[in-house]
């Protein structure tokens, strides 16, 4: 097991990602952040808080998206249990930033785009990930905001741990 980002590095990376978002979207008036269930929302929770701090806004449009029913492997090996989708605003015409922790094959993001489009027609969709496993892609999907790009082989696993859920902020590579 190898540590890719420790607590401090992770914190700096999150700050940078949040600033990059604000750099591109300025006042967030027509922008919404949407985290992907289940583990993407731990990242998007943090990013949404940081963006609020940087922009000085009390609230921004922020939602959570469940993609279970849009997976392409819904019947392979077993049943995936759904989680809540909480999007309490219209995404119609909005600029959406999809947020997930690890970008691997790209299949999750494909499903997330389909799930999102079932909620309405956004103006644009961008993708933010904390870790990009760049040589593992199976679909033509690339992120717009990346915490760290890493080279891995398929048998390795990347785990992003969060204080709220796992008791510690860190990103590790498991062989």
């Amino acid at each position: 097991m190898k540590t890719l980002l420790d607590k401090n590095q992770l914190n700096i990376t999150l700050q940078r990602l949040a600033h990059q978002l604000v750099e591109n979207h300025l006042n967030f008036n027509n922008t919404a952040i949407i985290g992907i269930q289940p583990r993407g929302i731990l990242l998007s929770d943090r990013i949404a808080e940081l963006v609020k701090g940087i922009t000085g806004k009390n609230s921004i449009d922020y939602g959570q998206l469940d993609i279970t029913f849009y997976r392409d492997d819904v019947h392979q090996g077993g049943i995936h249990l759904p989680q809540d989708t909480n999007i309490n605003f219209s995404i119609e015409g909005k600029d959406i930033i999809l947020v997930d922790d690890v970008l691997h094959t790209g299949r999750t993001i494909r499903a997330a785009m389909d799930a999102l489009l079932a909620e309405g027609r956004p103006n644009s969709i961008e993708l933010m990930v904390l870790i990009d496993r760049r040589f593992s892609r199976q679909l033509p999907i690339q992120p717009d905001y990346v915490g760290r790009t890493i080279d891995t082989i398929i048998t390795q696993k990347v785990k992003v741990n969060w204080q709220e859920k796992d008791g510690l902020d860190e990103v590790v590579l498991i062989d």
Partner: protein
Amino acid sequence: MSLSVKHLLGIKELQTQDIELIFRTADTFKQVLQRQIKKVPALRDTTVANIFFENSTRTRISFELAEKRLSADTINFAASGSSVSKGETLIDTVNNILAMKVDMVVMRHSASGAPWFLANHIDASIINAGDGTNEHPTQALLDAFSIRERLGDIKGKRITIIGDIMHSRVALSNIFCLKKLGAEVMVAGPPTLIPKHIQDLGVKVEYDVKKALEWAEVANVLRIQLERQHKPLFSTLREYALYYGINKSMLDSLNKEMVIMHPGPINRGVEINSDVADSKNSIILDQVENGVAIRMAVIYLLSGKGDLGE
């Protein structure tokens, strides 16, 4: 986590955690049904046969809608106008349908136990949509789901089932379901319509409907099933309505807010009056709405071929 069963034949065979899993899954489908696009592509590779050997409006439409909202392909089969009238057996009928590559069968049958018989002979997953006077599991699930939605929880709640308990598969499935979820259950109605020894299922019995209403927080009023009564069990419908029918003045005299349910179809003016069925206490149409979400959850969870974990 996944269901402990391959078929949904009866509530009796479900674990409490199965029921809770179905409810949690139905919660997410209810979110889907409130969107503009009320459809998900989850089961686009699944074909479901709806086989109804007995009449149905709500249940058949509800199942078909649930299947379509999941993007499953559906075929509908009604016994009238089919080869069943030429003498084809149940297994032959179903096997012929399955030979056309159907993954799941939703069946209603007038013979109690028919879905169990079928489950022993074919590979596809079977969902019981009502068998004779035995079980109607999806109705019980949607009833309990609707109570949970209105009252927050089922545990410890007092629920009375009123009317034709003897011929009601809804009553039996409801009793199993509510008991597993920790509710107190009382059946009420004329002695001729309450089976002997029903206390053995852990329910209270009351022959005075007024007393049952005073005790309960929720009343599930059942339809008088004249088509299943082969000998007279009460004198006239008017007499039944007089002694056992639920009306507004009776509810008003209780001085409390009750939740009123009915599985449909309603005999207005017999077991329940319009002034109750259409009142704000009634969740009859919520039951119908929740039926689609519950059936989507059941079909989705049974479509899996193993356990993936969380």
